[in-house]
């Protein structure tokens, strides 16, 4: 028995680098920085510039302590000194105390005494450190530094240079973490200041993080400025729901309104970082356009408020006694896991239809999203691994995942192989980049998998194919495929073929499906997808406890539902927080479907283009207004918390489902969220082993067990489209800022959406005699439209790229619905150089 054995019998060896900390024996991890080792031993060393998710810089000098590494004690910055064996550290020696006192007096010398009107007052590290370690009185009688205050450095962030203590946190974040080095120091000495470059604002998707990590009130975000005082805030940990990463957040409210969201440092997920969409889109909940009472459409098309009973009756009237094959449901990704389960039960067991899809054709087919062998974000970021980016750009679709991948590539020797229709946000870090022309991705992957030495007619040089093949098949390095829908203007079949080819080429590869919309994997897992029951069980492959009846046919996905509606094979549509008129890539299809369908009913938070067509709209709760669970793209479960009461008559989605069930048949089996969760946990196989305490704890969160009892099968690959056309292949994808509901309803974000432009490669633009700001005449199926043009330096030739849901021209007008790819005939239009 060793002396390290603890009382409960487990052995926990005292290991690590031994050192003396304020007279006591302590142990550091190998290579651990002194400031962090001390923190673990309960000794807080004051600091400003140090941040554990960024490289140490040793700038503020606040953390100077007496360190004796064998050559006598001397002041060392503990944020830059790794603990070495037998180091003697005294954080309370007269020298340490005098240095801390000195640095604080100097930092405060020019710092304005405007704490009473400063947003940071009350939660300010400078204030806290000044109280704990500072001199208490200033001897500085000179005039303080003056700058214009504050200056906007982006649409969302203001900078007050008088308050800035130049800790290099925001500038390091922008450069190291976000990869947007748009703010830096200018001038020197006492005049040193943070600023942007003269003509470039700090327009980063991640600008809000700089506000969160600023140790003083120098950086403030426009949505929160002067909205609350820290001591008035109450907080709850929750999960961001704007994308599938499920970043951990803390919701802070004042006077029953959410006024701020901060990132929470979760090792497994977002490391404390958030995208600005995750951080600021809480504003949407307060939008004047919010539906807060049930709405019924009158004969002349207006909406009037109604009581819940009346509206629910109307809703039930529309869906009762309909042939299950003639009713369909679109949406469900916005809901909590519990609400998804409730709705899945209502749809599949009570209404008994399988026509339900939580995706709008912009993710992956349900079987693939559920059936590919999975990994986690940490798995993808395993040091020394290989990450294949297939299709979508994580910077636009899952920004915090982009930050994790970026860190892994830069710091953990992860190799990036990019197989995307255009260079992604990580392109400059990629070891190999293939940009197949739309329609060609399957063929390119087949060529990668084919015999070496030939280009297999895929249009990629044999050496480049060889390089990718070598990287993927070297063995010994975990291969992760981060896969999403990269081009809405090509058939999803090509991407599916590419996935199949990749899987057979690298049988050990793991996948991280990067789907659009928040809780989309939860929705798929709960069965809001054609052909599936909860727990990823194939329809016909099992039953669900407590579900008396099940659909008797294989349903359609969103594309199929809309086609069927257009040809009058479906006449009732339930919109579950979906806006296909605005969101679905094939605009003519969806318009035809909406024109021909008999009855639309909706559960929604806003009047959208689609919900305006419903006969009745039931108002649902938004993020921050209801409790529940979120399943992120890894299958990780984390809590959603109600921080503020619902506005008006709004109800959580599960309650709406229960109300409808009560009217349609036997009363709902659950009356409370607790009952619902118990039923869900027992009925859904993948959730059976989940510890719900762990979910609610706010730690990293447990993973659902997503192993399947069925094998994903791939169809035979389709040949690439013939390239008889001389036109450019169209590529349409999503930017982070688009005219989706959350952005358009958030005052601070709606202005960030770009104007629609058709982006061309420099060579194509030259050939077509088009330059920036020209207008192109684009021929599609005999109709000519005018589209503004931009030249994109890195875009491969042969491709024309537009983002969907931008301001002005609707990119969907160009997408051909009946072909596998879209070829555009482009010529210079008005303003072009003739």
């Amino acid at each position, binding site marked *: 028995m060793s002396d390290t054995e603890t009382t409960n019998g487990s052995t926990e060896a005292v290991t690590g680098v031994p050192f003396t900390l304020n007279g006591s024996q302590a142990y550091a991890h190998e290579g651990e920085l002194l400031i962090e080792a001390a923190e673990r031993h309960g000794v807080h060393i004051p600091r400003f510039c140090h941040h554990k998710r960024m490289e140490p810089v*040793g700038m503020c000098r606040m953390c100077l302590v007496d360190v004796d590494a064998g050559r006598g004690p001397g002041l060392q910055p503990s944020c830059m000194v790794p603990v070495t064996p037998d180091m003697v550290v005294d954080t309370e020696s007269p020298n340490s105390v005098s240095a801390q006192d000195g640095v604080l007096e100097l930092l405060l010398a020019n710092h304005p005494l405007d704490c009473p009107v400063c947003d940071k007052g009350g939660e300010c590290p400078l204030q806290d450190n000044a109280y704990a370690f500072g001199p208490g009185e200033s001897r500085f009688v*000179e005039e303080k530094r003056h700058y214009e205050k504050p200056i906007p450095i982006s649409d969302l962030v203001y900078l007050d240079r008088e308050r800035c203590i130049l800790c290099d946190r925001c500038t390091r974040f922008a450069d190291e973490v976000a990869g947007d080095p748009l703010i830096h120091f200018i001038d020197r000495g006492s005049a040193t200041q943070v600023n942007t470059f003269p003509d470039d604002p700090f327009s980063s998707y991640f600008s809000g993080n700089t506000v969160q990590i600023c140790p003083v009130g120098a950086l403030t975000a426009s949505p929160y400025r002067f909205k609350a005082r820290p001591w008035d805030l109450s907080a709850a940990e929750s999960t961001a729901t704007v994308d599938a990463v499920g970043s951990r957040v803390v919701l802070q409210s004042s006077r029953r309104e959410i006024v701020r969201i901060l990132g929470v440092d979760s090792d497994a997920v977002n490391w404390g970082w958030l995208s600005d969409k995750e951080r600021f889109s809480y504003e949407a909940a307060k939008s004047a356009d919010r539906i807060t009472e049930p709405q019924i459409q009158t004969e002349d098309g207006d909406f009037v408020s109604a009581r819940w009973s009346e509206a629910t009756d109307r809703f039930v009237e529309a869906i009762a006694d309909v042939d299950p094959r003639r009713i369909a449901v679109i949406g469900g990704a916005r809901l909590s896991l519990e609400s998804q389960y409730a709705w899945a039960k209502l749809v599949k067991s009570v209404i008994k239809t399988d026509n339900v899809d939580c995706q709008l054709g912009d993710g992956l087919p349900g079987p693939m999203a559920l059936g590919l062998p999975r990994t986690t974000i940490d798995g993808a970021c395993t040091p020394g691994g290989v990450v294949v980016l297939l299709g979508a750009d994580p910077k636009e679709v899952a920004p915090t995942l982009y930050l994790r991948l970026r860190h892994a590539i830069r710091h953990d020797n992860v190799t990036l192989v990019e197989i995307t229709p255009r260079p992604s946000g990580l392109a400059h870090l990629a070891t190999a980049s293939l940009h197949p022309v739309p329609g060609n991705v399957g063929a390119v992957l087949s060529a990668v998998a084919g015999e070496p030495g030939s280009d297999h007619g895929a249009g990629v040089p044999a050496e480049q194919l060889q390089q990718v093949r070598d990287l993927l098949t070297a063995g010994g390095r975990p291969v992760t495929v981060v896969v999403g829908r990269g081009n809405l203007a090509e058939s999803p079949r090509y991407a599916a073929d590419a996935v199949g080819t990749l899987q057979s080429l690298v049988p050990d590869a793991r996948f991280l499906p990067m789907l659009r919309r928040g809780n989309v994997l939860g929705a798929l897992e709960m069965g809001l997808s054609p052909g599936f029951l909860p727990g990823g069980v194939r329809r016909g492959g099992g039953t669900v406890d407590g579900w008396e009846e099940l659909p008797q046919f294989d349903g359609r996905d969103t594309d199929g539902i809309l086609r069927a509606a257009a040809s009058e094979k479906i006449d009732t549509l339930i919109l579950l927080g979906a806006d296909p008129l605005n969101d679905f890539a094939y605009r003519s299809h969806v318009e035809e479907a909406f024109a021909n369908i008999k009855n639309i009913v909706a559960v929604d938070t806003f009047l959208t283009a689609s919900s305006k067509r419903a006969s009745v709209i039931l108002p649902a709760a938004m993020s921050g207004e209801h409790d529940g669970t979120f399943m992120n793209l890894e299958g990780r479960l984390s809590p959603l918390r109600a921080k503020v009461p619902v506005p008006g008559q709004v109800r959580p989605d599960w309650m709406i489902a229960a109300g409808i069930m009560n009217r349609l048949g036997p009363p709902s089996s659950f009356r409370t969220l607790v009952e619902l969760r118990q039923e869900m946990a027992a009925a859904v196989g993948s959730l059976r082993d989940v510890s719900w305490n762990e979910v609610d704890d706010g730690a990293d969160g447990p993973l659902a067990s997503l192993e399947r009892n069925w094998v994903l099968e791939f169809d035979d690959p389709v040949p690439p489209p013939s390239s008889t056309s001389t036109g450019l292949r169209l590529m349409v994808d999503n930017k982070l800022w688009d005219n989706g509901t959350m952005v358009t309803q958030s005052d601070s974000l709606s202005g960030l959406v770009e104007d629609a432009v058709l982006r061309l490669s420099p060579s194509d633009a030259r050939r077509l005699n088009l330059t920036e700001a020209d207008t192109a005449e684009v021929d599609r199926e005999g109709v000519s439209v005018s589209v503004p043009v931009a030249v994109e330096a890195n875009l491969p030739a042969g491709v024309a790229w537009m983002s969907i849901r931008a301001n002005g021209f609707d990119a969907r007008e160009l997408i051909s619905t009946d072909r596998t790819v879209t070829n555009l005939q482009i010529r210079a239009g008005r303003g072009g150089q003739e």
Partner: protein
Amino acid sequence: MATNAYVPHAAGYVDNEGPKVVTANFADPESFTLPRYVTSGGYSGLRRALEMEPADVAAEVKDAVLLGRGGAGFPAGVKWGFMPPVWPRYLVVNGDESEPGTYKDRLLMERDPHQLIEGCVITCYALGLNTCFLYVRGEMALAQERIAAALNDAYKSQYVGSNILGTDVSIDIVLTWGAGAYIVGEETALIESLEGNRGMPRLKPPYFPAAKGLYMKPTIVNNVETLANLPWILRNGAAEYKEMGSERSPGTRLVAVSGHVKRPGVYEIEQGKVTFRDLFYGENFCQGIRDDNELKMFIPGGGSAPWFFSEQLDLPLEASEIGPAGSMLGSGAIVVMDETTDAVKACHRVVRFFARESCGKCSPCREGTSWEEKILERFLDGKARMADIDLLAAVGSKISPSPYPAAAWEEEGLEAVPFPPRQTTICPLGPSSVAPITSALRRFRHEFEAKVVLDDADEENVDALAAAADATPVALGGAQ
């Protein structure tokens, strides 16, 4: 071939008729051209080096005890030995000479650029590396022009580039111009600048250039004058080199004398053989103080060095003698001030330089140096209180703390501030601003006191002071 004649500057090179190593060609106004350099035996040191094993070349330099001439005075041969066996590795030549009063490297680059280039190539060969970055201060237009022309000629004649002198040795020299920042003379800041970043020092450890330097690769940073010694050493051997100078500091070195002497200029002196008295008053040297005034004080090694006074005149110019006396020889910039000098003004002038050149990285230096400057300014503007004298010392101690507890420090008086200084900063720039303050306060406290106008106890005056500062240029002169 360029034939533009040398343009004499206000204070240029002065021949003191002593032994010459690096200024041997200075007598020739065309010494910067390749033919003249070759005629005088140029590039024969390189030829000899190329016949030797690289390790033997390094050994020869180590044997010569060639002390670095950039300021720290560390033996170059020993420094070279710190390089781990990792490739690629780089040589960086520090030509960003900007210490106030220093202008020796500029003369070396203007008047004998090939000597420097030969030194660079020899060093690269000795260290087994093939890329050298030559970083020249942005303001040195003539030096840049001459170095660039010389490098082009050297490339054409195969002294630099591929297959040097027909061997299989290939070495490239890359020229870079600075953008005007004193701090870039600090080696880690210079490396940051070379990488295209803002010139701010890196912390040592972990960023010792020899281990993690340019692009995080092993890097040797040497001063221009240091490398200019190499052709001579390779041509004549370490033994002959050591016959000059003193035992601990062999060879010669350049000193740049400015200020109140009759003949300021750059002198090549044998290390340890010449005293300050010789230098200031000797017939071959500066020939005395201007107007035969009394010497008041002198800065022996650049603005960062604590001041010396007449009692130190008999110290020999040798790093190992000057260190224990409480200052440094640094880069050899000697500034002489006569009895007419206002000590407070002189102190303000030096501190202002450091306040303006602080890179802004470390809080104590960024905030402290400008605070010191403002306090000194008030002494000059007649807005000082008696308390400001101690405040000035106290602010300095926040940048360069005393090794003693504050109480003991007060008991012992200001003399206790040690040299070399302790620092709360990454690099010595901030602490450098404290040296002149300490020197001036120690010796000329009465001059500070004489400039005090305001009463400490008078709160109104302190308020008025602040108000006056807010509303400059309202004068708050002696009338108060």
